């Protein structure tokens, strides 16, 4: 649906852009909201999972007889209970339950269902697994070495010509760009090339994965799952267990954070298989250790970045080589890394090459702007270094080279109206940038890009007899989106926000809807609601026409009421939404709207960040003193929650930059699978996170909305790296820039 220019040009919004209380607020501050682990079903058993202690091992045999002999144990499942039915889901199934090999520390090898948690825990210790331990590799560069241990003897790199004759750990090589980078670099007065490394980080949602599955003897089943996409759960579980989709009803619980990590299945097919085997509902709740070892992390990466510019500050060529490991399966987000690397800039000659590498680490899952922050760390660092070398202000250097409407992006398409110029302009004029750098601090800036997604989306809109409205959503509410849905519906209908209530419908109550991911929810469900509201008000106009005895075309919907369209239509008092709802029964029956769309033109997201920090040379401790997030929201539907997305994404990026990383022992075991040793930012680590919302309307959405969930995790790594450089003179080439690394860098610098 195109932008409704009468709204955005003349700022006619009535409720969109206000900050009402969220509809699910009271449930969530009183402890009443029901999350994944809060569900109990009659006769329920507890499921628990046995995980490989080895990073790479052949499974020679599993003997569960002693576990099954324990009183209270009802079933054990292993790979034998999961038939390989569907080639598309091969990797998913192998990740859910190891087949002949354990591919990482924490890989599921068996699961048990018992009458209590403590019996299930005892049973796990009684399952005997015979392993043949194999050499493991957990680093992307080591995995690419010629003598690296191979995960598979049949992985031949795709995307290279001629096709390789030897197997390797490189699943795929891909390339993006345009122009001639060699010719470009030849013209450059300044060329800087550096190689950067980023550690693997975890999404770190506070709610561990949890589900309850109940499989009935007649082949129908129900599931309660904390997930970003209950239709994805239905699809994966039904296909893995050989069920018709209509026989599996999945209800999404409230979700305690996801950030991309809950867009796939882990424990859910296992719980369903255990329920099928025992004939009783089965609940599985992961421990934090399991979450770290077996779910989600993002890729670690090694990236070479080269940028060349002429003396006048124009970039003449930009090039990057990206190596991302994504665990034991093809599909790391290196493609998105390679696409986003230089997306902020207007470049004549640009080339990115990505290597998708497999390793003995957990299967990577999407994490907020998947693949983008790692390469942005390198690109934004080199951008600053080139600017310094040219003697230019780094912000001016970015403004001179920023992408604009009509720019052919580094990944292919030509941009429509985009917000990077507005973001950088807002940055330059922000109070933060205008203020002097605090004593002892360094200031860093960086920009970031994310595509934003649309996708398949269904909504329902029911007009109640009293004129209130219930909306049914197929997208999961992961961070307060019910409020923005109610706002957009109220705006489109012309009724008060308080008259609209949102429910998240289960998979049998609404049509197929894609997962909440890619910053798509407010954009696409909002668009569907606006369409459904248009259908509803059209029906309301028809009812008024019937009452007034005039043609339907002679009635229009203005400010929440049906009115005669012009003087020729006749003179009638407007009929409000409530009045028409009240007489629905006598004018043709119930009034409802619905909409099923495949939303396109999501509208690219851009952000610009400023960071002031100081580094203690003795301890390497970095204190973030001031931080400002500037981002284009297109149109901020509920500005408080838009700010919340900006702040939350920035905080995650700050954690990635300064402390968070997966640490492995030489034999490939994860050394820090807990919040004490995998340190996400705590309240005392951060200052207030200042926000500036920029609004460059997205022409692809009637209200101008762009997704806002992800973009702001992209700039912090570069902004912090640049601030560290300006505070200490040291260019850090690896994240996290943790105290030990900074202390080592200070020592190196002192030697030199």
């Amino acid at each position, binding site marked *: 649906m195109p932008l409704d220019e009468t709204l955005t040009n003349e700022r006619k919004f009535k409720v969109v852009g206000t*900050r009402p*209380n*969220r509809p*699910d*607020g*009271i449930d*969530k*501050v*009183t*402890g*009443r*909201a*029901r*999350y994944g*682990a*809060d569900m*109990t079903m009659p006769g329920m058993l507890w499921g628990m999972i046995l995980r490989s202690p080895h990073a790479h091992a052949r499974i020679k045999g599993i003997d569960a007889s002693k576990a099954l002999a324990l009183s209270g144990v009802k079933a054990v499942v292993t790979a034998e209970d999961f038939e390989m039915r569907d080639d598309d889901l091969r990797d998913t199934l192998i990740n859910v339950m190891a087949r002949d090999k354990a591919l990482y520390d924490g890989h599921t090898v068996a699961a048990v269902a018992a009458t209590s*948690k*403590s019996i299930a825990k005892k049973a796990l210790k009684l399952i005997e697994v015979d392993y043949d331990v194999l050499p493991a590799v957990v680093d992307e560069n080591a995995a690419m070495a010629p003598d690296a241990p191979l995960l598979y003897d049949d992985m031949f790199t795709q995307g290279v010509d001629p096709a390789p004759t030897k197997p390797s750990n490189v699943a795929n090589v891909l390339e993006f760009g345009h122009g001639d980078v060699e010719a470009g670099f030849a013209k450059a007065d300044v060329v800087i090339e550096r190689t950067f490394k980023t550690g693997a980080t975890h*999404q*770190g*949602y*506070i*709610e*561990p994965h949890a589900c309850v599955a109940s499989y009935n003897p007649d082949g129908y089943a129900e599931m309660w799952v904390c997930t970003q996409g209950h239709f994805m759960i239905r699809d994966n579980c039904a296909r893995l267990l050989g069920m018709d989709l209509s026989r599996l009803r999945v209800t999404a619980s*409230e*979700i*305690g*954070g*996801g*950030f991309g990590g809950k867009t796939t299945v882990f424990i859910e097919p296992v719980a369903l298989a255990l329920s099928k085997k025992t004939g009783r509902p089965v609940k599985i*709740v992961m*421990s*934090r250790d399991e979450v770290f070892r077996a779910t989600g992390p993002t890729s670690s990466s090694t990236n070479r970045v080269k940028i060349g510019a002429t003396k006048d500050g124009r970039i003449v060529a930009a090039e990057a080589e990206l190596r991302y490991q994504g665990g034991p399966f093809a599909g790391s987000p290196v493609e998105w890394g390679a696409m986003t690397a230089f997306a902020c800039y207007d470049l004549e000659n640009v080339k990115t090459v990505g290597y998708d590498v497999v390793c003995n680490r957990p299967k990577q899952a999407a994490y907020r702007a998947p693949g983008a922050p790692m390469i942005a760390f390198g690109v934004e660092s080199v951008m600053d270094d080139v600017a310094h070398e040219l003697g230019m202000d780094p912000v001016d250097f970015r403004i001179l080279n920023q992408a604009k409407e009509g720019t052919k992006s580094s990944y292919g398409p030509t941009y429509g109206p985009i917000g990077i110029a507005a973001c950088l302009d807002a940055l330059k004029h922000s109070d933060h940038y205008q203020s002097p750098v605090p004593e002892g601090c360094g200031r860093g800036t960086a920009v970031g890009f994310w595509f934003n997604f649309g996708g398949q989306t269904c909504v329902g809109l029911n007009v109640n007899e009293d004129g209130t409205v219930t909306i049914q959503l197929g997208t999961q509410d*992961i*961070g*307060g989106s019910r409020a923005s849905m109610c706002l957009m519906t109220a705006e489109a209908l012309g009724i008060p926000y308080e008259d609209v209530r949102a429910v998240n419908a289960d998979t049998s109550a609404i049509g197929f809807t894609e997962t909440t991911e890619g910053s798509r929810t407010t954009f696409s469900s909002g668009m569907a609601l606006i369409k459904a509201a248009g259908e509803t008000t059209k029906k309301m106009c028809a009812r008024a026409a019937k009452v007034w005895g005039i043609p339907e075309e002679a009635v229009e919907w203005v400010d929440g009421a049906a009115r005669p369209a012009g003087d020729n239509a006749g003179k009638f008092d407007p009929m409000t939404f409530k009045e028409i709802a009240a007489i629905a029964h006598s004018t043709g029956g119930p009034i409802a709207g619905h909409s099923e769309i495949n939303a396109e033109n999501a509208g690219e997201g851009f952000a610009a960040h400023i960071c002031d920090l100081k580094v203690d040379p003795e301890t390497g401790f970095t204190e973030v003193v001031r931080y400002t997030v500037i981002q284009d929201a297109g149109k901020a539907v*509920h500005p*408080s*929650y838009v*700010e*919340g*997305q900006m*702040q*939350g994404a*920035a*905080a*995650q990026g700050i954690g990635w930059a300064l402390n968070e990383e997966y640490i492995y022992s030489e034999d490939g075991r994860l050394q820090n699978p*807990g*919040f*004490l040793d995998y340190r*996400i*930012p*705590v*309240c*005392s*680590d*951060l200052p*207030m*996170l200042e926000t500036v919302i920029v609004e460059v309307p997205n022409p692809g959405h009637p209200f101008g909305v762009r997704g806002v969930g992800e973009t702001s995790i992209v700039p912090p790594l570069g902004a912090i790296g640049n601030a560290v450089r300006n505070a200490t003179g040291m260019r850090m080439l690896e994240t996290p820039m943790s105290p030990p690394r900074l202390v080592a860098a200070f020592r190196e610098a002192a030697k030199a």
Partner: protein
Amino acid sequence: MSGKTVTTTINGDAVEFVCGADETLLDTLRDRLGLTGSKEGCGTGDCGACSVVLDGRLVCSCLVLAAEVEGRTVETIEGMASGEELHPLQTKFIEHAALQCGICTPGFLVAAKSLLDRNPDPTETEVRYWLAGNLCRCTGYDKIVRAVMDAARELREAKNAA
């Protein structure tokens, strides 16, 4: 399996339950007593999502054995509002959009109330350090700190008016 009978007070009500010797207070609250407002984010005392007040002291209920609460008083998130009236902290959390997913919210509220019961006029730094044992991955803490400071102000004003 030998159970232990425990008599205690939870949110002002006398409660009796039977628990296993190795059972945590968090498991008892959630799985036996239906008080699922306290959340398990880690089970090792690192995240604070299971925060409760035991005899006036803020604790992680995942690090307390259920058997330990014999004869003591426990306050959980379910006891924070009085009837229909929310505690000012609860209201301010909603008004300031201090929650996104909400899983950490009960723990933050219990911890923040414990702070304001001791220190009605905390500085931003005091709020940040008191709440450093509660992890939130959604908000970056900004709006949480603002909500706590605003609730503290409102509580002080109400006290001064009284």
